[in-house]
């Protein structure tokens, strides 16, 4: 079937509420801060927002329905996203289709979580039934365990070495050094990366994101509405989602992107070589390698060679990767990590980066990945954004 983009739809008003390691506030405060900033910065009133889509792990027992009453919103379109790290591109695609179809005029897309300290362990206790039955009894670890197993397998299969993983972490930390809200800002050297304490071999400290609290948000509306409000916006050229791709693989060796990238690029009329940046989901560097391969920036198994050859910094001459530092620098505020690539990607195509601005960035790719139900992330997603022309 011929893929289809999203006609006359605009993504606008990227908002990042600065993260903290230990939050004094509940998750509603974080989500509400994002919503409040969307209203304040857009000049669009709360009453005009008629669609709401949100991602949060720590909102339970409440849901996105609860948020309407909590925030005094009355909407006609609503979605609750359980896709974790894949939720940003998914939120954008779902909201864009709703606006295109006329099911909503202005959709607020928000993510918020409170996950420093003991809250992270509590989330892991009840993350999924498979995890509770067949993973948690093995060391009571959380995602470090499945990703250590995935990383070891990938390194054996491709010949990747720790320095290859380190190149991703170091380039992103370089970008994060300039991003005002990054919790980890100090430049990282290869010596420091290699000397870090082991967590779950081959993963060491700087391969792992730091749990924290935070929120992100953006608005989706018609291009006409964005132009009328004088808002910079991006068009959504294409988007894909995939769940439980390649279940027959003994260990995960890719996300779902190889199944969907041809449709993604065909809908956009562009290829990977046309992207001015890649905002890739970076819970662990091996997953960035999956995206480099699965989204066609290099061949399968060639990501280690790619990161050796290509400059990944935002102010370099190669492929700018996670230009705000990614979660490896910002910290990972639960499902908010799925939104980071969208807000950063929007700021880049607007030419309004908070940290390093990629020169002349007008089009870029944002991908998401997440939800380790048993031994692998089940969700993958991607969107191509382009600067809107007014």
């Amino acid at each position: 079937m011929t893929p289809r983009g999203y006609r006359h739809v605009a993504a606008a008003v990227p908002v990042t509420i600065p993260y903290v390691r230990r939050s004094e506030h509940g998750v509603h405060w974080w989500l509400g801060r994002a919503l409040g900033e969307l209203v304040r910065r857009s000049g669009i009133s709360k009453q005009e927002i008629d669609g709401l889509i949100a991602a949060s792990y720590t909102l339970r027992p409440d849901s996105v329905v609860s948020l309407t009453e909590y925030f005094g919103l009355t909407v006609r379109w609503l979605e609750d996203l359980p896709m974790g790290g894949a939720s940003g591109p998914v939120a954008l695609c779902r909201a864009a289709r709703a606006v295109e179809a006329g099911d909503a005029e202005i959709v607020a897309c928000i993510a918020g979580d409170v996950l420093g300290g003991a809250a992270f362990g509590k989330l892991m206790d009840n993350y999924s039934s498979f995890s509770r039955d067949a993973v948690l009894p093995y060391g009571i670890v959380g995602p470090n365990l499945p990703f250590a197993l995935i990383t070891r397998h990938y390194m054996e299969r491709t010949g990747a070495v720790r320095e290859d993983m380190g190149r991703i972490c170091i380039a992103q930390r370089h970008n994060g050094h300039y991003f005002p809200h990054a919790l980890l800002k100090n430049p990282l050297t290869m010596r420091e990366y290699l000397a870090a304490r082991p967590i779950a071999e081959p993963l060491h400290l700087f391969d792992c994101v730091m749990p924290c609290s935070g929120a992100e948000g953006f608005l989706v509306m018609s291009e006409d509405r964005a132009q009328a409000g004088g808002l910079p916006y991006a068009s959504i050229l294409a988007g894909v989602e995939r769940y439980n791709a390649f279940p027959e693989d003994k260990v995960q060796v890719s996300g779902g992107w190889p199944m969907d990238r041809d449709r993604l690029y065909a809908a956009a009329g562009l290829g990977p070589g046309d992207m001015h940046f890649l905002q890739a989901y970076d819970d662990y560097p091996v997953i960035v390698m999956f995206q480099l391969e699965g989204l066609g920036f290099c061949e399968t198994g060639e990501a280690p060679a790619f990161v050796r050859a290509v400059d990944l910094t935002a102010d370099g001459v190669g492929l700018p990767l996670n230009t705000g530092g990614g979660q490896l620098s910002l910290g990972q505020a639960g499902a908010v990590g799925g939104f980071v690539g969208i807000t950063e990607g929007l700021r880049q195509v607007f030419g309004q980066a908070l940290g390093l601005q990629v020169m002349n960035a007008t089009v870029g790719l944002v991908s998401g990945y997440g939800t380790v139900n048993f031994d692998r992330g089940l969700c993958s997603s991607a969107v191509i954004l382009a600067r809107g022309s007014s």
Partner: protein
Amino acid sequence: MNLCLPHCQVCARSHWPPREICPHCLGHEIQWTEIESGGSVVTATLLHHSLEPRFREHLPVCLATIQLDCGVCVLVYLDSGDFAIGNRVIVSTGTGPTGQEALVAKSVTR
């Protein structure tokens, strides 16, 4: 102890983690059935960190993904530090370091 896995009475295939519905054929009659306990290491990690304070005294510990000879992959505690990919193991139901029930694998010496 021997190894039992959920086994579909319709398509005669095993699966893991446990389900009440077969992921292969959607059959709804699942019985735990003893299976051949041999397998080989697909991937492994030496774990140095746990979220649970009472687990930390048992670290480091080796954990592995084992492909059983029936094709099903399981996560296990591995008994030895020698966890090279492809090593043969025997998997059984046993106990983990803190006494909880878990799958454990012993290396087969050749």
